[in-house]
Structure formats: structure tokens, C-alpha cells
């Protein structure tokens, strides 16, 4: 019964979404404030209905109701409660429901908190959200309905894919979706602005918090997914330029560009047209990612052709939204007034440069992801595009961008002085050169380019703090005065500094971990020892351990350095009984919060031996800690007073902007 109610709620939500798609926009056209005013309550009601549908499905999972096909396919009565919750979205239908749920959460937030938005902009924005919601609700109801019943309910479910039985599933997909669906708000605001034919700096300020929220959560979601892959898979790898990863990385890249161009628009009223285009493109990339992942086109072009119902549906949505968005843009954008003149060497100029490189990098990732599909579909020729391609095309575009990162914030708006900015960065430059030389002098082996990369990372990290140091007068004023100035700084300054600092950290982690990692692959028997990078690993023995849904073969290792015990590690080879599927449970020991010893077990060999993989991964945690720091930077920026009070009145805004510019 609850399942049927859930299904019904979803249909009701669709009906509401259809009303929301039409009525507010009609109101905006005819200047009818009553029609415009229904947008917010309808958005909130939709959130309620989709939420109830989601709750109904969750209820079926928690109570192991195997008469629901989706539950039967993806759950098992003996699973721990946490995984019963998370398996709701550990499958196609459920994850699409989550997608729509997050979409309506964002609409409801705009409805509930966008109180000081101009009524027309708000009505149009919510109407566009209504289009997206209606389209995806139709997709769920027609092609991916999670509420199907089975006539004779099976007694036991087929279990969740063991790889997904991990805390990672609880965190990664929701974060990722919050990020990529969050960009829908920027898209809707842009379409609304185009419909209305007016856009100004205040628009940028209303959109920026939403972009920041989506960007921050996407950053965290990608990092979380990468760390999950790292510990779950047992290879010690964290990124491999797979199409599914690229699908989430592309919106991140263009979202990062959007974040920066919106600053120019807010502060200087320039780059309006470009910012609008970028918000359309960013959400288009989110939709493209959804298409790639959900249609099955990646598995095989042929599989897609034989069972195209879902794929074609999303493809139509994709064409409608991207094509419609871009057509509207082409039609309306020339009518938007350009503002704010600036010279190439200026804060704006540096942000244009940022956008240039990020866009080109996005294009490189996009073509690498789609080209093999397009080539196979058109000529039948099959090629593979893997990591070596992306390292060769994406990498070189990042280097000039990273070099420019610390310089940008030190340039003045409108017309900057590059020489003066460089003078202010002499500490960062000195630190970078010092560290590079030190690396060349002290480290033997590894890549010859690695010390340069490390120098670049240090440049980005130290340089990220230069703006703050300058503004608080550190080393120039007495410490107490500097400190009081530090407290008085706008939070966006902290946000930018932390964001850039985190980027440097991630870069540092990537370079050090890939250039200086060591590994050993061998067969060990109880009592055997091996050493890598000064750490000795001794296998004491193994034992079996059975849980209700899996059996572990656990190895026991003593790790020592210079005779001192460092850790005792217990990697395991796990077999899930219901599907008879093996997984690897790696054992990771973190030294000093940065470097990791990574141990995973392979197959049992003859003579009581077992395959063992050991990695020494220096500074590897920086990769993910850097992302966390970027996220925190995003939080600082959102909490800035100017954004927190959200939508300023159009008159008051000019004064404020002048005060902070």
C-alpha cells in the first residue's frame, strides 16, 4: 500500500511540476502577480510529494519488501540497516529518484529562501526548474519506475552489489548529485534572465551562492568517490579518466569557470553574456553526464542501440534542454547590454584567462569522452581513449592556469600592475624555487619533472596566502593590528585563499604520490618479511572470520621501521556468500596524517602462500585533504555577509559593490 502511495505521490508531483512549468511564466508575461506567486508554494509542495515517494521506497527497503521488484533486485534481508538505506540509490531507478528529489530540494530552497528576488525573475526561474522536474519525473515514471510490484513476492532478495556495501555509497552519490543537480539553479536563473531580457550585476549575486553550493558539494563528492575507489579496489589508484569519472569532472571544471566569471559579473558588471552561456553549458554537462551514465551508452554503443528506451528518452531531454537553452541564448544574448571595460592585465583579465584554460581543458576531456562513442557510431571503428591521452592534452592546459592562480587576486580591478603583483609574490616565488632546488638536491630517482611540479604546487599554496598577507599588512604592521585586520577581512577573501591553497595541496599530493610511490608485489607465507621505503612488513599468519553475509580471509601483518613497531595491519580477502563474489578489503595505515602504507591481499597460492600488494604512498592524503580545504573555502565564501543577506535591493547594491571592489 505504501508503495502504491509513493507511486501516486510521484504522479501528483508530475502534475504539480506541469503547473509550475506554465503558470508562473504566464504570470510573468502578463504581469499577473497572483499567477507568479504560486511558483513558490508549488515548488515546496513538489518537494513534499517527491520526498514522500522517496520515503515510501526507503520504507520498502528498510522493511525488505521483496514484492517490489527494485527492492528484490538490490537488497537482502540480512544486510545491515545502513546498507538497506543506501541501496535505495544503489541502482538505476532509485538513483534517478534521488536525482529528481535533489532537484526539487533545490527548487524548494529557491522558493522558500528567495524572498527578496524580484518576482518575475523568481517566477521564471522556478518555471524553468519545473520544466526540468517534469521531464525527469516523466523519465522516472515511464522508463525507470522503482515502484513496480512482482506478482508472487520472492522470499529473499538478490542482495546489493558487494562493492557498494560500503559507507562510501552513503556519502558519494548524494554529494555528487547535490553538486551536479545544483547547477540546475544556475541554468534556470540564466534561462529566466534570457526570457526576461534583462540581467545585471545583482543577478550574479543571487546566482553565486547557488553556484558555490553546487561547486563545493561536487568537489567533495568527486574527492569522496576517488578515495572510495582508492581504498575499495586494492590497486592504490585514485583517478583513471574513465568516462563515468569524466562525466562528473566536466561539470566541475566548467562550474569552476562559472564560479570565477560570476565574480567578474557581480563586481564589475562585465562578462554577462559569457556567464550566462557558461551556466547553460555547465548544467548541460551535468545532463550529458546523466545521459552517459544512465543510458548504458558507455557499456556499448550496440547495447544502447538494441535497448534504447531509456537512452533515447534522456537523449531527447538532453537535446531539448541543451538545444533549447542555447537557441534561446543565441536569440536573446545579443540584446543584453555589455558593461564594464577592463584591460587585459587586471583582475577581470586574469579571470578571463582562468575561464579560457578551464574551458579548453573541459573541451579536451569532453572530446576524449565522446570521441570513441561518436567514431564507433559513425564509422564502426573502435578506439580507446585512456589516461595517456588525457595526461597529454589536459595536463599542459593546467600548467599555465596554475602558474597564474596566485597572480590574479593581486591585480587590481580594471587595470592592474603585473610587475607590482609579482613583487608581492616574491615570498611565494622564493619558496617555490627553494623547494624545487631542495628536491633536486635531496631526492634520487623518481621523475625528473617532479621537483618542478612540487615547486609549482608550493607556488600555488604560498601564493594563495599572498592576498591575505597583503591585506592584513603582515610583517609590515604590528602583529596585533594585523590580527584585528585579519578578523575584519571579508570572508570571500578567506574563501579564495583556501580554495587556491587546497588546489595547491591536491596538486602536491598528486605529484608526490605518483612520482615517489614504491610498491612490491609478491607471494608471502606466514613468517615472511619484505621491506619497502624503510618499512618492514612481516606476515604473521592468516585466519578466517565469518559474518552473516560474508567470509573474510584476514592476513595479519606487523609493520616495523628501524626495529620499532609502526602498525599492525589486517587486510582481508572477502567473499560475499549470497552472490559468491570476492572483494578486497585493503588495510591502510596513515603516517603523520599524510603518507600512507597500503596493503591488499590477492589470491591464496600453493604451499600456504598468499599474493600481497604493498604500496608506500608519500603524501597521498593531500589529494583529498586539498579537496576538503577547497570545500571549506567554498563555505567561507558562501557565508560572506554580502551573499548571506542574499539579494540586496538593486539600489543598495551599487553602493555596497563600490565599497568592496
Amino acid at each position: 500500500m505504501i508503495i502504491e502511495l509513493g507511486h501516486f505521490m510521484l504522479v501528483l508531483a508530475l502534475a504539480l511540476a506541469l503547473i509550475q512549468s506554465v503558470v508562473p511564466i504566464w504570470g510573468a508575461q502578463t504581469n499577473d502577480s497572483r499567477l507568479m506567486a504560486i511558483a513558490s508554494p508549488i515548488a515546496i509542495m513538489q518537494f513534499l510529494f517527491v520526498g514522500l515517494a522517496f520515503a515510501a521506497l526507503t520504507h520498502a527497503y528498510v522493511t525488505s519488501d521483496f514484492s517490489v521488484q527494485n527492492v528484490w533486485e538490490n537488497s537482502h534481508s540480512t544486510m545491515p540497516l545502513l546498507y538497506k538505506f543506501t541501496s535505495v540509490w544503489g541502482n538505476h531507478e532509485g538513483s534517478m529518484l534521488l536525482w529528481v528529489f535533489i532537484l526539487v530540494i533545490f527548487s524548494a530552497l529557491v522558493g522558500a529562501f528567495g524572498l527578496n528576488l524580484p518576482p518575475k525573475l523568481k517566477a521564471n526561474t522556478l518555471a524553468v526548474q519545473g520544466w526540468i522536474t517534469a521531464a525527469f519525473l516523466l523519465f522516472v515514471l515511464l522508463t525507470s519506475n522503482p515502484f513496480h510490484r512482482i506478482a508472487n513476492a520472492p522470499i529473499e532478495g538478490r542482495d546489493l552489489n558487494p562493492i557498494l556495501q560500503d559507507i562510501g555509497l552513503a556519502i558519494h552519490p548524494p554529494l555528487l548529485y547535490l553538486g551536479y543537480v545544483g547547477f540546475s539553479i544556475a541554468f534556470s536563473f540564466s534561462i529566466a534572465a534570457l526570457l526576461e531580457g534583462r540581467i545585471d550585476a545583482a543577478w550574479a549575486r543571487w546566482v553565486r551562492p547557488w553556484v558555490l553550493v553546487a561547486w563545493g558539494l561536487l568537489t567533495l563528492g568527486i574527492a569522496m568517490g576517488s578515495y572510495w575507489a582508492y581504498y575499495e579496489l586494492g590497486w592504490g589508484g585514485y583517478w583513471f579518466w574513465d568516462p563515468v569519472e569524466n562525466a562528473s569532472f566536466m561539470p566541475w571544471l566548467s562550474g569552476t569557470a562559472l564560479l570565477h566569471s560570476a565574480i567578474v559579473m557581480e563586481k564589475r558588471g562585465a562578462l554577462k553574456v559569457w556567464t550566462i552561456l557558461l551556466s547553460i553549458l555547465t548544467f548541460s554537462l551535468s545532463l550529458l553526464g546523466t545521459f552517459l551514465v544512465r543510458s548504458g551508452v558507455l557499456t556499448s554503443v550496440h547495447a544502447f542501440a538494441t535497448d534504447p528506451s531509456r537512452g533515447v528518452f534522456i537523449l531527447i531531454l538532453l537535446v531539448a534542454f541543451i538545444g533549447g537553452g542555447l537557441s534561446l541564448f543565441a536569440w536573446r544574448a545579443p540584446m543584453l547590454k555589455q558593461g564594464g571595460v577592463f584591460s587585459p592585465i587586471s583582475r577581470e583579465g586574469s579571470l578571463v584567462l582562468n575561464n579560457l584554460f578551464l574551458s579548453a581543458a573541459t573541451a579536451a576531456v569532453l572530446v576524449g569522452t565522446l570521441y570513441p562513442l561518436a567514431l564507433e557510431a559513425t564509422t564502426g571503428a573502435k578506439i580507446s581513449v585512456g589516461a595517456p591521452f588525457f595526461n597529454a592534452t589536459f595536463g599542459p592546459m593546467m600548467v599555465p592556469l596554475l602558474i597564474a592562480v596566485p597572480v590574479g587576486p593581486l591585480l587590481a580591478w580594471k587595470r592592474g600592475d603585473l610587475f607590482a603583483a609579482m613583487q608581492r609574490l616574491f615570498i611565494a616565488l622564493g619558496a617555490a624555487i627553494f623547494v624545487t632546488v631542495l628536491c633536486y638536491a635531496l631526492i634520487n630517482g623518481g621523475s625528473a619533472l617532479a621537483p618542478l611540479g612540487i615547486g609549482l604546487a608550493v607556488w600555488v599554496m604560498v601564493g594563495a596566502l599572498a592576498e591575505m598577507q597583503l591585506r592584513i599588512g603582515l610583517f609590515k604592521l604590528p602583529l596585533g593590528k594585523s590580527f584585528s585586520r585579519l578578523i575584519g577581512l571579508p570572508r570571500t577573501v578567506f574563501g579564495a585563499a583556501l580554495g587556491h591553497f587546497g588546489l595547491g595541496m591536491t596538486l602536491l599530493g598528486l605529484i608526490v604520490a605518483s612520482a615517489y610511490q614504491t610498491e612490491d608485489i609478491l607471494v608471502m607465507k606466514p613468517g615472511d618479511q619484505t621491506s619497502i621505503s624503510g618499512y618492514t612488513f612481516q606476515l604473521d599468519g592468516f585466519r578466517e572470520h565469518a559474518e552473516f553475509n560474508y567470509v573474510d580471509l584476514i592476513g595479519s601483518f606487523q609493520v616495523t621501521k628501524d626495529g620499532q613497531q609502526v602498525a599492525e595491519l589486517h587486510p582481508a580477502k572477502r567473499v560475499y556468500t549470497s552472490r559468491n563474489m570476492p572483494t578486497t578489503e585493503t588495510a591502510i595505515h596513515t603516517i603523520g596524517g599524510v603518507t600512507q602504507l597500503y596493503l591488499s591481499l590477492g589470491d591464496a597460492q600453493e604451499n600456504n602462500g598468499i599474493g600481497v600488494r604493498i604500496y608506500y604512498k608519500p603524501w597521498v592524503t593531500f589529494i583529498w585533504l586539498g579537496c576538503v580545504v577547497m570545500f571549506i573555502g567554498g563555505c567561507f565564501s558562501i557565508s560572506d555577509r554580502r551573499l548571506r543577506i542574499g539579494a540586496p535591493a538593486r539600489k543598495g547594491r551599487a553602493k555596497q559593490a563600490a565599497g568592496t571592489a
Partner: protein
Amino acid sequence: MTFSLQPRVVYRLFAALLLALSFQLATGPAFAVKPDEMLEDPKLEARARDISEGLRCLVCQNQSIDDSDAPLARDLRILVRERLSKGDTDQRVKSFLVDRYGEFVLLKPTFSSKNLLLWAFGPLVLILGVMAIFLFYRRNRMIAQKAEVEGKNHLSEAEQERLNAILSDDEKA
């Protein structure tokens, strides 16, 4: 180029996780290079690892044979090592495999005419972007100059009024 990301994570987790389409996609995680396959000579083994990372396991999804535990990947790994032990150069090992399995086996596509767009697209966007920015700044400068010229020649209504007022004051005085 130092921004080389470790390519050795496997497709499967993400396939399972994000696709979450079917369970068949994700069989268990694996243990790619096995100790018994490895060559005695560490230099030769390092070369074999290097080559393996650039070769695709044909039955997997975008996964190199170095990462994959599929039986075919194992066969290919052993094949690569055999050829190397017989004294083949890296290039000959690769072309041997391409002859046998087609370009699909290479994770780094060749620089051939059919891949022209693939390799050129990113740089092309960069170049077009630079051109667009150049035009943008040129127009920007023109607007600025025009504004300056207009600023010299024309006064706004308010300014004109004030000017008139001042002038008329002068006349009175």
C-alpha cells in the same frame, strides 16, 4: 608534464556505483599483475609494466591490462613479457598487439587522420578562445575610446543645465 594522474584505478567501482545498472557489470575487485607473471629482470619488468599500462584489456571497460584481472588481460601480460624477453623493442611489442587486435588495444589513440579531431579539439578551443578574447579586448578598447571622445564632446543633460546655470550666474555678475 608533471600532472600525471595515476591511471590505475579500475572501472568497475564507478561502473557499479554510478551506473548501478546491473550486478553483472561489477564482478569483484581483482588483483591485476600476479607475482608469478613477473619477470626476473627488474628493468625488463619495469618496461613490461610501462607497456601494460598503455594497453587496454579488450574485454573490460577502459581498463588497462595492468589493472585487470580478466583472464585475457593475464594472457596479454604474459604475451608482452614473452616478446620483451625475446628482445623486442617497446614499439615492436605494441605494433605486434595492434596488428593482432586493432587500434582498440591502445589506450593512447594514434595520431592518425581519423583521430585528428580528437587530438586537435582541445587545442582548437584554446586557440579560438584566445582569438575571441583578442576581439573582446579590441572592442573593449574601442568602446572605451568612444566613451572618452563622447565624454569630451557631449555633456549629460544635468551637466548641461549646471553649465548653463554657471554661465548665467557669470552673466549676472
